[in-house]
Each structure stands twice: as C-alpha cells, then as structure tokens.
C-alpha cells in the first residue's frame, strides 16, 4: 500500500510534467488575465520594481554609506529574486485552494497547479530581471562570465521551490491558518536575509548565525553571486542541494500519504 501511494505521487509529478501545454497555457492565461486591456501589461511590475530599487538604493545606500556601484546591483538582484521566491511561496500555499474548482471538476494531476503558479511567477520574473542589466549599465559595471552560473543556480532554487510549494500547499489546504503564518514569516525572513543590507556590514559572530543558518541566504546567494560576478561558496551549493534532497523526500512521503485527501479537504 505504502509503495503504491509513493508511486502514485511520483506518477502525479511526472504526468504533470508531461502536460506542459496545460501548465504553460494556464500560467500564461493568469498573467494575461491580470493585465488584459492594460497598455504596458506586466511591465507595470517592472516599473514599480525599478522605482522601488531606485528609492531603497538611494536611502539605504546613504544610511549604510555603501558605494553605489556595489550596493545598487546587489540590491537589484536580491530584491528581484526575493520578490520571485516570496510570491512563489505565498501563492504556493494556496495553489490547491485556488484551484478548487478545477480539482473538483477534472482529474488533472495535482502538481499541475503548483507548476502553473511557478510558471506564472517565472514569467513575471523575466519581466523584472530586465532591470538588472539596466542597473549594471547605470553604475558602469561590466558583466562577467560568472553570470552564466546563475542559470544552474536558479534551477536549483526552482527545485527547492517546487517541493516547498507542494509541501506547504498540502498543509495549507488542510489547515487554513497556515498561509497567514507563512506570509508573516516571509516578512521576517526578508529582513533577516541580506537583501537590503550587505552581509559585509554584519559583525563576524552575528554573521555566522544570520547567514549560515538561513536557507534563504544560500538560495539567494547561488543566483545572486554569479549575477554580481562573484562565485557562490561551496557551502552555498551544498546547503541548497542538501535542503532539496531532504525536502523532496519529506514532500514525496507527505504527498503520497495525503494526495488523495486533498480533493476532500477543499
């Protein structure tokens, strides 16, 4: 019995991936629906993100007395990535709840709903990422070859986000108070993670706790560091891979156990 439900969970995931047309169509439709009849569409997000980066950059750059050519690209990369990660997690909490009508109507693999919101957020990320080269240009920093390492980094982060979304999605469907807790937690993590402040500003001892023990620091770092022309540390890579492995095992077990119940909980 336990075996068949694990294979059922894996089957759900693989058949979801095989239905990429559906995922892409639904994800696109979400973005289009939000911005239909608006002239700039999703680029409104880009503009507001740009304005935010500019403002925070000016204020905090002054407060921390950080040199702009270092602080601004750091802030831009960090904020764009964090916005992506946090909206994937927030929306991941409600991916099954939001898809209630579909889940109760059509026998579509459940993980389709997770991939759908991931795809939607990736589309928005590609709109936002446009800001980064502009910032680099503005501060006169040259791109480096390390930049390409951001791609495997992002893939690894995505791997982590998928399990996190399925895991949280199941729990949040059953216990409807969890999404609120998660969104408060994300606020806290935002300030704990070096996004608006440079890690080099931390005193040595505090740094070991606030950085090394914060998984989101490692997630950000394996994408952000290459974008800034640095190499992520081996530790960043290992922690991210390790969390993915542990997280996926836990998620498969949870998904196998409760996958059939999700429709009943809605």
């Amino acid at each position, binding site marked *: 019995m336990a075996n068949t439900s694990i294979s059922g969970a894996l089957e759900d995931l693989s058949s979801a991936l095989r239905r990429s047309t559906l995922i892409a169509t639904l994800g696109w439709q979400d973005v289009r629906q939000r911005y239909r009849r608006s002239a700039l569409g999703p680029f409104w997000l880009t503009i507001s993100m740009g304005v935010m980066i500019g403002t925070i950059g000016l204020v905090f750059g002054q407060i921390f007395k950080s040199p702009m050519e270092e602080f601004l690209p750091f802030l831009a990369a960090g904020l764009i990535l964090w916005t992506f990660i946090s909206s994937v997690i927030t929306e991941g909490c409600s991916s099954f709840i939001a898809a209630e*009508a579909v889940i109760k109507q*059509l026998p*579509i693999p459940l993980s389709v709903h997770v991939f759908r919101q991931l795809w939607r957020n990736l589309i928005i990320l590609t709109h936002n990422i446009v800001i980064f080269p502009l910032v680099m240009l503005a501060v006169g920093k040259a791109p480096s070859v390390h930049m390409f390492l951001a791609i495997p980094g992002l893939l690894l982060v995505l791997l982590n986000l998928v399990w996190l979304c399925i895991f949280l999605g199941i729990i949040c469907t059953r216990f409807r108070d969890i999404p609120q807790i998660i969104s408060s937690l994300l606020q806290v993590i935002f300030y704990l993670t070096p996004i608006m402040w440079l890690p080099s500003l931390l005193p040595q001892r505090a740094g070991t706790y606030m950085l090394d023990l914060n998984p989101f620091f490692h997630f950000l770092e394996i994408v952000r560091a290459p974008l800034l022309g640095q190499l992520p540390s081996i530790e960043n890579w290992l922690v991210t891979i390790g969390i993915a492995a542990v997280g996926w095992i836990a998620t498969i077990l949870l998904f196998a156990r409760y996958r059939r119940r999700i429709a009943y909980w809605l």
Partner: protein
Amino acid sequence: MASIVFDKVCVDFPIYSANARSLKKRLFQVATGGQIGTDASGRLNVRALDDLSFTFQDGDRVGLLGHNGAGKSTLLRLLSGVYEPSSGHAKINGEIGSLIDIGFGIDGEATGRENIYLRGALLGLTRPQIQNKLEEIITFSELGDFIDMPVRTYSAGMHLRLAFAVSTVIRPEILLMDEWLSVGDESFKHRAEKRLTELVASTNILVIASHSRELVCHTCNRVIWLEHGKIKMDGPAAEVTAAYFGPPPNQ
C-alpha cells in the same frame, strides 16, 4: 476494452468547520441524502456514498437515477477520478471524458480562439491536437469572425455553442454526463444532437445522471437507482425506471 469495477466503495466527506452538530445533524438527515456521522476519532463526516459494488463493461449505457443529494454527482466525480474512495476499491480502466459543466474554464476576457486552446488543454489535448481540430471546432460553433472577439461579448447561445463544440471533440472510452446537453437554436440543436449521439455511440461505456424518464429509457440499457448514497436498485432500464417513476404511462 474499458471497464469499471467498484468493490464496496464508500465516500465520506470530512467536515472540519461544523461545530453546531446535534440539531443541524438531525435536520440534515431529514432534508438531504447523505448520512452524517462521526468516525473513530470523533471527526464529523458526511457519508455521500455507502458500500457501492458494481461492474460496468463495454457496451454498458448506465443511467443514474435518484433524488437530489442521493449521490449521483459524487459518483460521477468518483468515476472521473476527482475523488478517490474513502474505503473500498474503485478500478477504472479506460480513458475518461466528461461532459459535465462544459463551460468550465472559459475565460470571458480571452477570445474564442484562446478559449479553445484553454479548454482543449484542460481536456487533456496537446497543442498540435488542438490545432488539428481548430477549424472543425470553429466551423461547428458557427461563430465566424466572433472567434477572435473576447468571449464576454458573446450571447449566451454563442457561449454555449463554443463550449459545446470544444468539449465534444474528445473521443473517450468512458463518457460521463450529467443530463443530456441541449444547446442553441433549432438548427444548431439539430446538429448538436447528431454530434452528441455520435460521441455517445463511439464510447465503450456511458454513465449519465438524469431525472428524465424519457432520456434514461431512450439511451440506457442499465439503470442504477441511488438513495441516501446506497444502491436501491440496479438492473435493466425498463425495470428500474418502472420502479422509480411508476409504471410506464402507455401500458
């Protein structure tokens, strides 16, 4: 070869938010079909289907009869794979298609063409498959140039024609329906009827929930009468309809 085998299938819906139990519970038991009870851990449950066992094979045209709340829709959802039984085993072999709520997933702001892709993807078609059928769907729906207009500008009839045209391109082995679909004005109705009859004829197993005697007698060769989530009667259409609706009027 398609088949459906149900062995002692039960469906319990857990109710997590119901606190006021005693009075409500009594009232519900009288008013609706499901049986409300608590499980071992004291959780409140609504038993929607209770101990169903049956086998459907190729050629079966099954009608589901029963009052509102008897469990017809839940049974259809179980057959479509949306729900899995809380206990017992449901074995379903064959590709399933459903004509329940054909307007589902249609986005008013998107054009008719976009909606064909959307609805097609929800039905499990790939993009090339939809592209192949696109012309046929557009021709059948008689929408003409409106196909590139947002669906919110459509009349109710056009809306239904689009939904019907897309939903009936599937050719499943097991077809699930909730009442017969009847759409559009006289001329369209006629073509819709023909298309639907073809679709029904090409499936191996049809399961249709209905309140209409005429429909059940006309399309089904087997009828299951559900009451309070249990099978009250299972047999040839003529026999069960006679028991459910009373003796046939013409005899």
